[in-house]
């Protein structure tokens, strides 16, 4: 595994992620300090989820936000009569790419190089960070502006730059809210989805003045005013930045074209104004041809923000003489992706285009939010992707495949048809196999397995249940019980078994005449 391991202490709880921002402010830092601790040190999902569920404000924010975007997506998808054909095409294009990834990566490298870009390869997060830090230092700058990018979040580039004395300014509004809030992202598309407008106002008032143009003292919690404050705060940074860092939604092998899909124009600012552009791109982002974009430019906006088209999409092909950055670098990152690729049952997760439709539809995500998942990739796709990219050595990654009721809503909305429920089941098998030796769960499963492996065993159990029922003839339900029944009965009554199983009824009433 090529996993970033940090020596910092594990998070005590995800509550810290929302916690007191004063805790970790360090005078020597250039940018707001994120919460202490590491994702991989987090406890298992169940425990994080319980704490998040207790946060009433969080649940209210999430219910409102996911409900809004679910409805928008449904409307925009319903406008496209050939939506299912588009999904199938998206799936097929990604499958073709992934099954021949070496071919397309080499082609992408050739196209980019021909177009004047410099291509770098990074086996893991540490190598990617080292490449970017060296490129930035070589330009002699101490700050960069950033386009929202999952890949750079995944490799924790901002902290690597901070350690090298370089300030990385997030320019997407939600990423800015997260950065200024000393927080971590909780959603792929809207990283500050867990914050409501009054929380955003407080963060802006308190923090903006420490890092540049302050928010107006009389600012209200109107989202338009808050967006205006972000515009003013970031404009000076856009106007002076010499280096920008981005990711890419797609990288076209045929032409060397990189694509960034966005809304606010911060992406265009970063991709256009600075002299140097460094794009950190996961190796699975490649598409074979420019024509393939006709499929993804339909699938992504409607699935993601629930719009017919997002406000801005930038497509650039290496260096354009006289227009935009004249020094263009592309860092192709593996960081665990080849692990996922090697598992034919797991490969489909690399089709993900990071639209976050699965998060928005997920009833589990809606209630616990993104921080419980212990990764920049939360929700159903995160429950699949994190154990694939990071392995299943850590408690958090062992628990993620179980962070789902397997309701299947995620597959229905996935624009590239990733069979998330099936993949979770396969990962559960890997986790169960990994936990060698008898433990409570495997013992219970072995017992139940024995009971259900043969009808004669099942009948024994049925007789035991009927005996219990006859011993308590007036009890219809059982209330709170001690362990092992407590996880069920703490909040839910349990019906008593009947005094007669169906099998017994059948034997008595139909058994003589038929089997």
């Amino acid at each position, binding site marked *: 595994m090529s996993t970033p391991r940090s020596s910092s202490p594990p998070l005590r709880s995800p509550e810290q992620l929302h916690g007191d921002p004063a805790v970790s402010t360090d005078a020597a830092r250039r940018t707001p300090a994120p919460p202490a601790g590491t994702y991989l040190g987090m406890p298992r999902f169940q425990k994080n989820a319980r704490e998040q569920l207790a946060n009433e404000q969080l649940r209210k*924010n999430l219910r409102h936000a996911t409900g*809004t*975007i679910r409805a928008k997506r449904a409307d925009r998808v319903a406008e496209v009569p050939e939506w299912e*054909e588009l999904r*199938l095409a998206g799936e*097929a294009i990604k*499958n*073709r*790419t992934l*099954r*021949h*990834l070496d071919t397309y990566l080499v082609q992408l490298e050739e196209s980019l190089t021909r*177009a004047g870009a410099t291509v770098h*390869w990074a*086996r893991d997060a540490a*190598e990617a960070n080292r490449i970017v830090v060296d490129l930035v230092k070589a330009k002699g700058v101490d700050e960069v502006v950033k386009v929202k990018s999952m890949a750079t979040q995944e490799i924790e580039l901002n902290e690597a730059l901070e350690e090298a004395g370089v300030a990385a300014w997030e320019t997407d*509004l*939600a990423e800015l*809210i997260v950065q200024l809030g000393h927080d971590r992202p909780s959603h792929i598309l*809207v990283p500050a*989805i867990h914050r*409501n*407008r009054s929380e955003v106002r407080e963060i802006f008032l308190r923090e903006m003045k420490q890092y540049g143009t302050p928010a107006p003292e009389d600012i209200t919690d109107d*989202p*338009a005013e808050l*967006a205006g404050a*972000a*515009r003013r705060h970031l*404009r000076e940074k*856009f*106007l002076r930045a010499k280096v920008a860092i981005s990711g890419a939604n797609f990288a076209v092998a045929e032409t060397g074209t990189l694509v960034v899909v966005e*809304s*606010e*124009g*911060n992406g*265009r*600012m970063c991709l*256009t*104004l600075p002299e140097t552009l460094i794009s950190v791109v996961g*190796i699975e982002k490649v598409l074979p041809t*420019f*024509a393939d974009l006709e499929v993804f*430019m339909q699938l992504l906006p409607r699935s993601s*923000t629930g719009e*017919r*088209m997002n*406000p801005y*999409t*930038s497509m650039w092909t*290496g260096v*354009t003489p*006289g*227009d*935009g950055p004249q020094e263009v670098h592309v860092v*192709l990152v593996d960081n665990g992706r*080849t*692990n996922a*690729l*090697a598992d*034919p049952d797991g490969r489909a997760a690399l089709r993900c285009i990071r639209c976050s439709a699965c998060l928005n539809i997920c009833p589990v995500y809606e209630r616990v939010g993104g921080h419980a998942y212990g990764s920049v990739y939360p929700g159903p796709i995160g429950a699949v992707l994190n154990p694939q990219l990071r392995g299943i050595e850590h408690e958090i990654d062992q628990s993620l495949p179980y962070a789902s009721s397997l309701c299947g809503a995620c597959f229905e909305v996935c624009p590239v048809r990733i069979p998330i429920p099936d993949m979770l089941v396969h990962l559960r098998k890997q986790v169960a196999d990994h936990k060698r030796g008898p433990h409570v769960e495997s013992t219970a499963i072995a017992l139940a397995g024995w009971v259900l492996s043969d009808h004669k065993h099942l009948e024994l159990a049925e007789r035991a249940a009927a005996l219990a029922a006859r011993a308590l003839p007036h009890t219809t339900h059982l209330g709170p019980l001690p362990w092992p029944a407590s996880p069920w009965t703490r909040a839910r009554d349990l019906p008593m078994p009947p005094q007669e199983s169906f099998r017994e009824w059948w034997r008595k009433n139909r058994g003589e005449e038929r089997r």
Partner: protein
Amino acid sequence: MNAREEILARVRSALVDVTQPDPVLDVPIDWEYGRPVAMPDVLDRFVEMCEDYKATVVRCGSAEVPGRVAVLLTGAGVRSVVLPARLEPSWRQAVEAAGVAIHDDEPPLSRTELDAIDGVVTAAAVGIAETGTIVLDHASDQGRRALTLVPDTHLVVVRSDQVVPSVPEAVVRLSGAVAEGAALTWISGPSATSDIELSRVEGVHGPRNLLVLLVE
């Protein structure tokens, strides 16, 4: 082994189960690329969708364009514009006549200079009716990308023959420019965000006013 060789080796060993070397034969894609969509009301739809995303749209005949450009700019309170090098000369004359200060991008304006300019007038490459999208390929009648980004008002003139019904048709039309290395900017309404409580707010970093002149 260097990183490139190692990653490619990892990819190849991850794909040992793939036996068909030809990607096209290995995974067929059941999709007709660039398929035209019949849309009799293509211009009406384009206008409707642009307006739905809060762009201001005006339709006019080709003779009226210079006058409309001037009126739209002054109506939006634009006092200074940057104009791309090869913008239609009659539009430039009309802007000048309306008393709007004209800046040229030769030599290239600095970011700070651009930030002090109110607006920009450009042509376009493609319009997409079903999504209300305008695509710039940054040819010389559109200028480099920064021109249509930093000033707060963007007036874009789209010819009716540039408007196609669907995204696939647009991608077909744009493929030539991309093959020649052109950068593309797809614009659907003014800059917007939904990052606070998923409620849409128009106007963040890109131009907050998008004025579309559709020439029939």
